[in-house]
């Protein structure tokens, strides 16, 4: 009988681990629907990850949300240390196993955790207010439909409730310690101490029940939340790290070269090609129509997006009423990868389901509105690159469909025949110099 809670604990952890494993494998598969990225390790990558993900460098462009976010972030990292004690207690059937060993330091530690828990609650409440009362513009947007909005609010509410569970557990524990000498003496906790009046006067058995309930609620909550996160925009807490590690390190203005085109161009111009003796590689498709045409980093970008909307907020096309929203590009990419992955898992048609990212999710009107100004890339706190996806889709439209806007097709023609994007005869190219010299 005495082992029953330990067995239940292990079972619960095992079930959560199973679901997490399933979900992580699925996401991994979905991400690797994409093509190789060609990005290789360098010290610069570690530096970028440390600064941008760990150090949240780009968050601090907006100081208020940066501060609130920092509270939650530090709270998340540090309070997870306490979860270590939860897990050991859960497995060993102990209660606050660290308390006797750490003595007064334990009191200090838990007080720090409680301070952070209160910080997390404060930030989450502020974030809920920003989203639902102040209605900060970047959280609205056309793509912020039912689920994205609910998802954001759910995350904040769950975090508040989880923190409240810790405080409740500590408050009742302190009261129990006064009545039952078997409980480890932890000293006084400041913040949960404020909750003590709520529970004073309760019977010992009720207090023990509340304490246990809060303990189980917290640990189950954390495990459940971990699984939930994999279905949510909140996945950025993990993916921000690999995502920044795999950031584009080239100048932002540089578009990725299409080597398969280079070979053909060189052959057309009668120049030696690098792999002249090898048969030309089978080119599936020029540019991107669906998620498998993108690189896997593009898809990881999509899973790393927490839908904060800084990209869309800074997008010149979006702010002047065009349909383009870089955030929607990322959300669509993730949704499509999820759809394909779910279909494949069921033995379905996957990519061959008659749908595609471009067309069924993202329209030409959206990608055609982009000025390639890189404001979205610059704004993203985790270095997501919506522009890369947009430009690959333009390549598909131009090269596979010849479906570019008519004015662009004329521009192409001008470049081909007049060697300038405008319809000026090449003989006029040097007129500016003649005009100058005629003045002298």
């Amino acid at each position, binding site marked *: 009988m005495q082992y029953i809670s330990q067995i239940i604990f292990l079972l619960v952890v095992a079930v959560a681990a199973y679901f997490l494993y399933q979900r992580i494998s699925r996401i991994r598969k979905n991400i690797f629907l994409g093509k190789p990225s060609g990005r290789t390790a360098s010290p610069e990558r570690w530096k970028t990850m440390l600064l941008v993900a760990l150090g949240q460098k780009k968050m601090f462009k907006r100081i208020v949300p940066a501060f609130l976010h920092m509270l939650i972030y530090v709270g998340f990292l540090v309070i997870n240390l306490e979860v270590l004690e939860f897990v050991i207690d859960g497995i060993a059937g102990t209660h606050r196993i660290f308390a006797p060993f750490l003595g007064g330091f334990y009191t200090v530690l838990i007080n720090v955790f409680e301070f952070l828990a209160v910080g997390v609650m404060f930030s989450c409440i502020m974030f809920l207010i920003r989203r639902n009362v102040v209605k900060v513009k970047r959280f609205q947007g056309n793509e912020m439909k039912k689920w994205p909005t609910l998802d954001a609010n759910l995350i904040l509410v769950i975090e508040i409730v989880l923190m409240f569970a810790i405080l409740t557990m500590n408050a009742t524990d302190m009261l129990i310690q006064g009545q039952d000498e078997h409980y480890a003496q932890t000293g006084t906790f400041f913040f949960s101490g404020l909750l003590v009046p709520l529970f004073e006067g309760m019977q010992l058995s009720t207090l023990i029940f509340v304490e246990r309930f809060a303990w189980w609620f917290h640990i189950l909550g954390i495990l459940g939340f971990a699984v939930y996160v994999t279905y949510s925009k909140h996945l950025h807490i993990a993916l921000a790290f690999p995502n920044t590690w795999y950031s584009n390190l080239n100048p932002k203005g540089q578009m990725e070269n299409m080597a398969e085109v280079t070979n053909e161009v060189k052959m057309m111009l009668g120049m030696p090609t690098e792999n002249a003796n090898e048969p030309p590689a089978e080119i599936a498709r020029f540019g991107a129509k669906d998620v498998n045409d993108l690189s896997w980093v593009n898809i990881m970008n999509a899973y790393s997006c927490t839908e904060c909307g800084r990209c869309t907020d800074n997008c010149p096309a979006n702010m002047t009423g065009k349909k383009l929203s870089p955030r929607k590009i990322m959300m669509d990419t993730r949704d499509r990868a999820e759809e394909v992955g779910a279909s494949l898992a069921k033995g379905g048609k996957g990519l061959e389901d008659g749908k595609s990212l471009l067309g069924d999710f993202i329209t030409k009107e959206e990608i055609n509105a982009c000025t390639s100004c*890189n404001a979205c890339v610059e704004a993203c706190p985790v270095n997501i690159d919506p522009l890369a996806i947009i430009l690959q889709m333009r390549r598909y439209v131009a090269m596979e469909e010849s479906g570019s806007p008519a004015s662009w097709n004329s521009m192409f023609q001008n*470049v081909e025949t007049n060697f300038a994007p405008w319809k000026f005869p090449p003989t006029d190219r040097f007129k500016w110099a003649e005009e100058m010299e005629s003045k002298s």
Partner: protein
Amino acid sequence: MSDILNNVPVMADLAAKGESPEILFWVGCAGSFDDRYKKVTQAFVKILNKVGISFAVLGPEETCTGDPARRAGNEFLFQMQAVSNIQVLDTYNVKKIVTACPHCFNTIKNEYPELGGNYEVIHHSTYLQQLINEGKVGLKGGGEFKGKKITYHDSCYLGRANNIYEAPREVLAALDAELIEMKRCKTKGLCCGAGGAQMFKDAEPGNKEVNVERTEEAIETGASIVASACPFCMTMMRDGVKSKNKEESVVVMDLAELIAKNEGL
């Protein structure tokens, strides 16, 4: 004197004489064909001549870098342009290129190397800054722009695309003018609306033109001069000023024009 100032050496002529200039001035299509931007080209040539730099242009041999084709998705056309431009540049053994167009700058500097074209590429804002630092231009003081209110519009292809924010501002500082920043500047600078091949088509349906949004911001600063460093930005900002009926009070000028004017060229 004006003879020398208006001199435009052509690469092919120099090569025939067995000479090779220190820099190639890549004019770009806007600098060659656009009536307004031709003036920028001419101003920059005058500065080069005044300073006595050995330079040349490709003249009729220059063609589009391929930037708009690439941004609009036509990779074939871009690479055809790039590869043949690289052939021309390499024929003349070009080492150092200066250009007044951020799009040409970005393409030649960042995108030609993968296609075999490796050059030192400098945008004219950086080049002018170097000339100023070397004391070759713009240190007269009390020039025509002293104390005038100037705002600088960041080109996306200089700024975010290539992290060039300070050079254009240092050029303006040399004019002894009062630089007033717009609310959105440097990394947060708002696009003029022309990049990504938007220059060559109508904007998608919306409720405002990007250039109008940007021009309003520029006008708000109270500056009488909007300084730009990109042919597309210049067109968009001029159109914006026109649409706001502010042509009397606000002019759009390129950095090279400002320096040339300050130098009395």
